[in-house]
């Protein structure tokens, strides 16, 4: 199934896009992360968090097909 993925901050510049459609094998955190890192290998070494429906998702979080937000840490000030 496909989910929409939205990038934020420096990820938009690093990956060269703000939104994409991602094919995932299951509605699970690992499936999203693996598909994402396969599509964008640069993410593997980076720090980021995935969120769906305005909450950070982790190992056991139950997902639906709403868009996934990918937030990197910012440090400017």
């Amino acid at each position, binding site marked *: 199934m496909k989910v929409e993925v939205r990038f934020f901050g*420096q990820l938009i510049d690093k990956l060269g896009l703000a939104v994409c459609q991602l094919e995932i094998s299951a509605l699970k955190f690992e499936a999203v992360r693996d598909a994402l890192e396969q599509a964008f290998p640069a993410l593997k070494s980076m*720090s980021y968090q995935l*969120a769906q429906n305005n909450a950070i998702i982790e190992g056991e979080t139950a997902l639906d097909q709403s868009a996934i937000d990918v937030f990197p840490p910012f440090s400017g*000030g």
Partner: protein
Amino acid sequence: MKENSRYLRQQTLEQIGVEGQKQLLESRVLVIGAGGLGCPLLQILASTGVGYLTVVDFDRIATHNLARQMLFRNQDVGRHKTEVVTEYLKAYFPDCKVAYHTALFHENNAAELIRTHDVVVDATDDINTRYLINDYCVLHNKPLVFAALYKFEGQLTVFNYKGGPSLRCLYPKKPQYQEIPTCEQSGMLATVSSSLAQFQATEVIKVLLGLPGVLSGTLWYYDFLNHSQRSIEFKVNAAQLEYVKNKKAETEHKIHISIEELGSYEGYNWIDLRSKEETPLLPFEFIFQLPISSENFLDKLQDQCESAKPILFFCQSGSRAKKAQELCLNSGLQNSFALLNSIEDISTYLSTQCQ
């Protein structure tokens, strides 16, 4: 308390009142960073009547600061930010007692600074310093009001508030040095940094007064270009808090590094501290030779180095590298490491990497 008409309008707010104002006047806030976020934040906290402010910054005012760090005037260029901020706040806000610390916030001063304040504000621009501040706030159980930006986007949250999550709960994986572009590389607009600072200051006041709705466990994100926003919930990560409390995080705040930890060799300003007679020679054009005994060592160093990259000192065995790194730290020069491997290992590493 004697009626102070200065704060009359805010005292009229039922959330503040005379008692709340008294509380603010007795509060101690530590503000780390007197730049794009720090300047407007310090100004508004002082004007609101926060009684004690301590500002920490090592930096001097540069002309390119003036467009967004509006407490500074042309004639202040070259002076320490801490001194000028303090003069300004004392002149305009007589109720506010200001102390300053002209130094890099680092392990040697972190505990003492954080311990003696009610709330800590992270207004820095360096991710390593941000993790360091976070860890000391966890260790000393102090609320930390965090704001950070990237171009037109801002993030705001309050860490470590009444048992709430910390920076490491939100981002357990600490970013590598080159992962986040600096403001120097990405740019910054005054309206974005000062707007975010006002929100940050509001969280400080809410925390000081115990008002409801503190952004604990919520990362507020705002995009000033398209006005999209998110309030992302996140939870305590007990393993991360334990990691900090067991002092395991300390090794991360290090200033000493080994070749295994470097990542790409291209991400550094390589400084060879040995004299010309010492062997083996490392014939790589990206290495700058600057013996530690050179006159005006720090000036020459700064002339030579690209400021976007950390400095990497090395020598025969690492002892001069440690000394040079300490020199940098004491003069507020951020982002330098001492490479502690032997020259033979460094030579082998570079020969392999640069093939």
